[in-house]
């Protein structure tokens, strides 16, 4: 009976385990091995030679890689704080008890469901084109057309804006965090004489730090992995100004067929994300406050 139960248990688990092995574990290990090889997509795997750390050494002299790494960091450092601030600000507005607040919550969340899709990136490309909607809109205010996708600075801003537009999922998590702050604490702070700003600074934000931390880590990871937006809107241009690292990895592998180098770049990206996550976790003990009962009352 126990044996039969165990067998059906494994059967239920099998689809997940097969998927994990084929689509996650195998590519994970394979990409690590390939990063030490000179394997190219058009060659047979048997022809691949072990070249040690050659790809990693090559990165040091690869100017395209330097440029890509620079714009990736710029993209992450600008979009993550801005997106978190936007999401938190809107969540605070949506935390008010107002008539029809459910509609506004849905309306603000909607871009997150759509925002990551290829279709929206295509719409974005047309909206920011020379004769696109954005230029028409600023034209109504008398401003001249802006070369959104042709000027390096504007192109990066357009791609960043698409990411900011997808603040909904972080906002929903912030909103849940705000709802979790006991009303009594806010009332006690009001009685203690805290105004709106003091309430935010001294009570709300400290109590929200676990949620801020979670959202921060998730947003950093997602921002480092951004691909759809720059690929569809600007194709990494102009002058590689939006050539984020995932885009470079894709092109190295599927445009230049250098799978070995692309694998090495992937592992470097993984390492960068790992370092940022580790730093965030290490620093969390100084600024993240967990109110759960972890110490034994004496």
């Amino acid at each position, binding site marked *: 009976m126990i044996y039969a139960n165990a067998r059906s248990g494994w059967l239920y688990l099998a689809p997940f385990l097969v998927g994990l092995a084929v689509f996650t574990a195998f590519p994970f290990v394979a990409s690590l091995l390939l990063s030490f090889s000179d394997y190219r997509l058009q060659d047979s795997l048997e022809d691949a030679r072990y070249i040690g750390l050659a790809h990693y050494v090559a990165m040091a002299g690869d100017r395209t890689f330097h440029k890509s790494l620079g714009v990736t960091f710029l993209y992450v450092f600008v979009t993550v704080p801005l997106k978190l601030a936007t999401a938190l600000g809107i969540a605070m507005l949506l935390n008010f008890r107002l008539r029809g607040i459910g509609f506004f919550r849905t309306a603000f969340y909607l871009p997150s469901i759509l925002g990551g899709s290829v279709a929206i990136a295509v719409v974005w490309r047309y909206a920011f084109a020379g004769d696109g909607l954005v230029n028409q809109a600023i034209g109504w205010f008398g401003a001249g057309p802006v070369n959104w996708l042709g000027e390096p600075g504007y192109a990066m801003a357009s791609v960043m804006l698409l990411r900011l537009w997808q603040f909904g999922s972080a906002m929903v998590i912030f909103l849940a965090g705000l709802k979790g702050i006991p009303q009594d604490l806010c*009332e006690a702070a009001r*009685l203690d*004489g*805290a105004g709106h700003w*003091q309430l935010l600074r001294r009570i709300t934000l400290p*109590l929200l730090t676990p949620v801020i931390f979670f959202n921060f880590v998730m947003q950093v990871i997602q921002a480092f992995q951004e691909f759809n937006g720059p690929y569809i809107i600007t194709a990494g241009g102009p002058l590689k100004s939006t050539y984020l690292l995932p885009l470079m990895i894709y092109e190295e592998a599927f445009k230049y067929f250098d799978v070995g180098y692309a694998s090495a770049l992937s592992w470097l990206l993984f390492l960068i994300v790992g370092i940022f996550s580790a730093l965030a976790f290490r620093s969390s003990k100084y600024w993240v*406050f967990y*109110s759960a009962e972890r110490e034994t*009352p004496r």
Partner: protein
Amino acid sequence: MTPVSRAPETGTVEITGLAKAFGAGTVIRSLDLKIAAGEFVVFVGPSGCGKSTLLRLIAGLERADSGSIRISGRDVTREHPARRGIAMVFQSYALYPHMTVAENMGFALRMQGMGRAEIELRVARAAETLQLAELLERRPRALSGGQRQRVAIGRAIVREPDVFLFDEPLSNLDAALRGQMRVEIARLHARLASTMIYVTHDQVEAMTLGTRIVVLNGGAIEQVGAPLELYHRPRNAFVAGFIGAPRMNLLAVRAQHAERDRIEVEFAGRHIGIHGMTSGVPRGASLKLGVRPEHLVVGAGATATALCDAQVALVEQLGGEALIHATAAGGASEALVLKAPGDTAVRAGATIAVAVDPLACHLFDGSGRSLRAS
């Protein structure tokens, strides 16, 4: 900490025509109440009677629909909660979990812009009063329930308010700690001599702590008075039933004969004459006879009159005393609770003779109003 001399109006609370509704539901109905400086007033009543809303209106956490609130002689009806001269202790303690005990206690003073030295002095003084000196650097999560409660009280004390507000502060504690904290709060009131307004649904807390009790029901005051006044002279059947534990027995009786201040009623085929009542009760009127469990005796007492025979359903042994749950025989079939000595020989299933002291009896008319002559 010694009481300081204050202006005569300091600590007074005057509520006039106060009303509050949430949507279609009226929670407080045109309520008037005066509280003198230094009083310990307890708001008591069943769930939903409006006692917490009334406290929150005084605190300024709810806005009154009409009426006025004056604290220390000043109209504070539209005043910000922080500027009303009050401090509140919440049911949940509402301690800031990310701050230490000292930071929690000093937060209001920091918000007032008080200097660090003065804050530390006040916090240290309050901590000493409440035996919290050893815990000042701990966070709330490292404190027991009783310690958290003391910090919440300490946070109120350091503000040196005109009026302390307590919103069911002991309801999260276990029975033993509740009793201990009750004594501590009573001592604190004696020491500070400040006005305290205390909300509870526990009538034992109300009786033991309050210098005056305000019994609320349906958003209106049923009776205001000293604890023993409410116990001995309840204005109506609601107050009679609410004050006293176990609750007063309210038995359906019929008026047989009324003469001057004496009304004779019939219960389970027996007649009892009760003095000190108002005149004008018609013969045959349906009344309620109110008798507290402690005023019913098993068998015949020296001053007691036979009330009925009763079938014992259950005996609850409490040690020093026992509660006998019985059903009256003789056609009345009313449930009775008697308080008997702990060594009572009465057992479930027995039939007992129940007697009552007529002087300890209450009578209420059909609307629940007491018939006792004032």
